[in-house]
């Protein structure tokens, strides 16, 4: 974990109600895809957690949807403004041993999977990405994943399709899945996907660093903090 002031390089709309912000500052604390940051925003008492969509030596990127006060506040910020951030929180996805990954993302659950896809692409591993959105206006990162060499399948609820409808087809030839999205989607994926895999959970958090137990979820080995032992959990570990 590293705390610092990060400078906004850009903060722009990339889909309906979805923004992409790049924050520049030290990133050595980010070691795995699936980790998150906890941002202090003016006027909000608790920090707000966001998963990391991309990072390099100079900064990191998050994609967020405006759903409440925190995200509305973030969307109003612009170039040059500084944010106090706790960076490199949580455990991240396990990439080791996976040769044919299936990434399953729903809505703004897709961003950490993009970070993961980049890690795989660097090693010459081409994931399949199965992405679900409410409508075509909500689609994010599909083109960027294609540019990385991923095979991308998109389902839209406006067309009566959900990721689970194409799960069997997308799983063919894959050896492991990585999922992030709304809890309903994650539960359905856990229940129906035959592959072993990992799921990234989200909830409201307070500290984000393991102190308060405000984000504990139930696993087969007891309560685990989404911020510390998570946010990524093995499919088999979750008591769902």
């Amino acid at each position, binding site marked *: 974990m590293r705390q610092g002031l990060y400078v906004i390089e850009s903060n722009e709309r990339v889909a309906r109600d979805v923004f992409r912000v790049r924050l520049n500052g030290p990133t050595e604390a980010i070691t795995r895809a699936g980790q998150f940051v906890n941002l202090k925003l003016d006027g909000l008492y608790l920090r707000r957690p966001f998963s990391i969509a991309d990072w390099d030596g100079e900064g990191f990127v998050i994609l967020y949807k405006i759903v409440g006060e925190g995200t509305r506040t973030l969307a109003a910020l612009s170039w040059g403004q500084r944010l106090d951030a706790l960076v490199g929180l949580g455990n991240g996805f396990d990439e080791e041993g996976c040769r044919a990954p299936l990434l399953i993302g729903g809505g703004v659950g897709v961003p950490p999977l993009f970070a993961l896809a980049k890690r795989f692409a660097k090693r010459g591993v081409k994931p399949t990405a199965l992405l679900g959105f409410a409508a075509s206006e909500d689609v994010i990162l599909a083109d960027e994943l294609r540019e990385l060499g991923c095979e991308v399948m998109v389902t839209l609820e406006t067309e009566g399709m959900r990721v689970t409808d194409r799960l069997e087809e997308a799983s063919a030839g894959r050896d492991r899945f990585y999922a992030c999205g709304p809890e309903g989607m994650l539960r359905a994926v856990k229940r129906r996907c035959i592959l072993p895999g990992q799921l990234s959970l989200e909830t409201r958090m307070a500290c984000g660093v393991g102190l*308060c137990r405000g984000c*504990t979820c139930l696993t087969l080995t007891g309560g685990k903090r989404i911020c510390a032992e998570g946010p990524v959990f093995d499919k088999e570990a979750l008591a769902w």
Partner: protein
Amino acid sequence: MVNIQERASSGFCQRPVDISASVGSVRLKNPIMPASGTFGFGVEAARLYDINRLGGAVMKGVTVQPRLGNPLPRVTDCPSGMLNAVGLENPGVDRVLRDALPALADIYDGPIVANICGFTIDEYAELAARFDESDLIAALEINVSCPNVSHGGMTFGTDARAAGDVTRAVKRAAKKPVWVKLSPNVTDVAEIARACEAEGADALTLINTLLGMRIDLRSRRPVLGNTFGGLSGPCVLPIALRMVWQAYEAVKIPIVGMGGISSARDAVEMTLAGASAVQVGTAGLVEPSALVDIADALPDIIAGMGLDSYGALVGAAHG
């Protein structure tokens, strides 16, 4: 590492400021302790800052049986504070004594306080007896004020007779100093404070959180999985000050003041109201370095008031 004494003496104050504190027989190198439930069992905090800068270490509330706590979401906020409904999640007394407490004692050299919460008076006595046997524990903090469990907890702290009964049972079971942690969700805190003092409490800790809630406009449902939660943070400081003031007027035993302290100035204010030491909770969840920052800033503030010791502030606002 900045040495507190040196920094103070190099400033405008000629003499070094003594920021040591004591809660009855428990001596603290400074008056800043983490509030139970915001510090885990110390190992997590030790990754964020030097916990040996703290005057004391207060562990998360411990129950007889392990508890998983309440359903998510357990936390939310308001403009100047937060609500939590964690629900006393903890591994139970056996595992705390076996694992968490020795692990904390390995990395922390100051006094360790065990916070205990029962669902019956017998459970309070059992927990007190178990921790009393440990050489690693300096004092027991009796949580009769947790608002996030359906029975026990706050039920004992909102009735003077019940609070007195718990205090008596714990005092019989333990030789170590007993601090009773009081609830602000009461009509008359002085009456409860007096009841605990009469049954032999060595100190009082107050305030725990205030019962509150928030409702999500989109779902039109309560935000917290437990519907209600405990309010803490800067917004409760004036209430905490008022109740510490009232308790100070009502009893002679020392008071550990807490509730919304976010700066060294807040800590001084709480001390003036009657606290012999303070606990800082919520501020440390937002700003990991908050407790150490407060300890660092304390000497200059005390020196600026023309004083040379923290102890001179205790209750000084009472005429």
